[in-house]
């Protein structure tokens, strides 16, 4: 589903279409698929950590977008830069369900397999019910993140 083979810049939207706000990252990817400049890869991903490592192995710059549940207001947007050090606090996973996206980043760091630049956006979700669609606050946040990403990818754009 990448828009370019081995792109230098890769945007990875992570989530599950069938679980309400969990699809926030996928919605951002969908948005960027039509608006990202040529040469920027856009990928929809389920978040399985090992294959995330493989996806970003070839890219120089990677932007990750995922929904999160850190207790904040639904629709809140958080940003991290992997260069700032290990992910802590609200970016750590809360479940025991094997490994998560934050683990993929830390595993990549330990293995020397992080891209030159890795920036993540988290969108706080409110409803993760089976079969639900994006809640209004998260839908707005999706547009905000997509626009911010475009600004980051095209400086001054």
């Amino acid at each position, binding site marked *: 589903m990448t828009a370019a083979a081995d792109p230098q810049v890769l945007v990875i939207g992570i989530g599950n279409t069938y679980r309400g706000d969990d699809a926030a990252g996928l919605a951002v990817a969908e948005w960027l698929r039509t608006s990202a400049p040529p040469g920027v890869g856009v990928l929809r991903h*389920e978040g*399985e950590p*090992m*294959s995330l*490592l*493989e996806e970003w192995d070839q890219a120089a710059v990677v932007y990750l977008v995922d929904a999160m549940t850190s207790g904040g207001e639904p629709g809140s947007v958080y940003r991290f830069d992997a260069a700032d050090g290990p992910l802590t606090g609200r970016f750590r*996973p809360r*479940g*025991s*369900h*094997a*490994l998560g996206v934050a*683990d993929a980043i*830390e*595993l990549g760091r*330990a*293995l*020397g397999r992080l891209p030159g630049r890795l920036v993540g956006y988290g969108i706080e979700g409110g409803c993760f019910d089976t079969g639900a669609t994006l809640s209004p606050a998260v839908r707005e946040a999706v547009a905000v993140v997509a626009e911010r990403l475009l600004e980051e990818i095209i400086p001054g754009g």
Partner: protein
Amino acid sequence: MKDASPAAPVSGESIRVGALARVEGEGGLEVLVTDGQVTEARLNIYEPPRFFEALLIGRRHTEVPDITARICGICPVAYQMSACQAIEDACGVTVPAPIRALRRLIYCGEWIESHALHIYLLHAPDFLGYQSGLHMAQDRPDLLQRGLQLKKAGNRLMDVVGGRSVHPVNVRVGGFYRAPARRELDPLRPVLERARAEALATVRWVAGFPFPDFSEDYLFVSLHEPDAYPILGGRVISSGGLDIPVRQYGQHFTEVQVPHSTALHSLLDGDVTYMVGPMARYSLNAGQLPASVTDAARAAGLGATCTNPFRSIIVRAVETLYACEEALRLIEQYEPPDPPWVEVPPRDGTGYGATEAPRGLLYHRYRISADGTVAAAAIIPPTAQNQRVIESDLRDFVPARLDLPHDQLTWECEQAVRNYDPCISCSTHFLTVKVKRS
């Protein structure tokens, strides 16, 4: 991942792990000790049941492999293969040998990726004193790289044969939608040759782990194929002399509900606890392994059987090596099935299928109406079958270790559960709701 959180002692000592880490799905464990005796040992599975057997009813018989594949993201091929064989059995269809060979090939990919994941990321940290695979990666990135490389080889194989590595889309009742051309499989050879070397290195590596001195007299249950290590089918055999066709499984194995688990427990011949999985497969079928794999197993200290569950990590490594060799052999001898599938017209009947999932025997039974709709479904996954033996291990493991510090004992109990690579999401798909009315 959550840390173990010991609770206050209740009636003597209690070991409680609210949420087990490094297992697939949501479950906990509870061991109660009174006067030096283990009075309770419970694997608490509280992940909600998912009712797959109910939602299959009324669906087309051709939809079953894709629906049941969704029970598990780690072993979807096992579900597809058991489902296909049960449906074909109900319809009185036997697929030709080239289709069976291609099924075995994709199954090898699943064994490689599932075993590599468990060995390197979930189980090895127990033996080396790391809280997680991530912590291990920080000290030994070279080892994790090897594990990921091995897992990737399995994923590549599933990708090429199955169309994608998770929930493959190329499998159908009767065979495959499309048979890969020889030239598509050829690039897998160097990948699998490298994986074979990595698997051999894995066998040697895990053989050197420190293993607790613990051994049980298990009743092993697995499939047995006449001329190969069991993966895709065969008869159901046990170390107690059971030897039956898959269609008689239901006459010997029964499922029962227990209050502390949302997954049904399984018993053999009324009340017998048994084990499925790599140790059972190996102990009942070691003679079916090729000499090169047997040599590696012997060099790693495995005998003809394995009765220390902590050493199951060695058996998984040996099976990974076998899966690499078997995949290379199948690619070498590959003849694209033509046509890639056979028609499976529905008929009124019941069909049975069992294959060896990475975690053990996976049994499916379906009743199909003449128009092809599913009228009844039963799916018995390996983790559900192993719940009793996991609890039995805990009961026997703890008494000799009561002098250990609480945290250490808790850790070892968790490790005893992880010996089985439990897949809790698989085990809780069941449907049996009992309504008691006065």
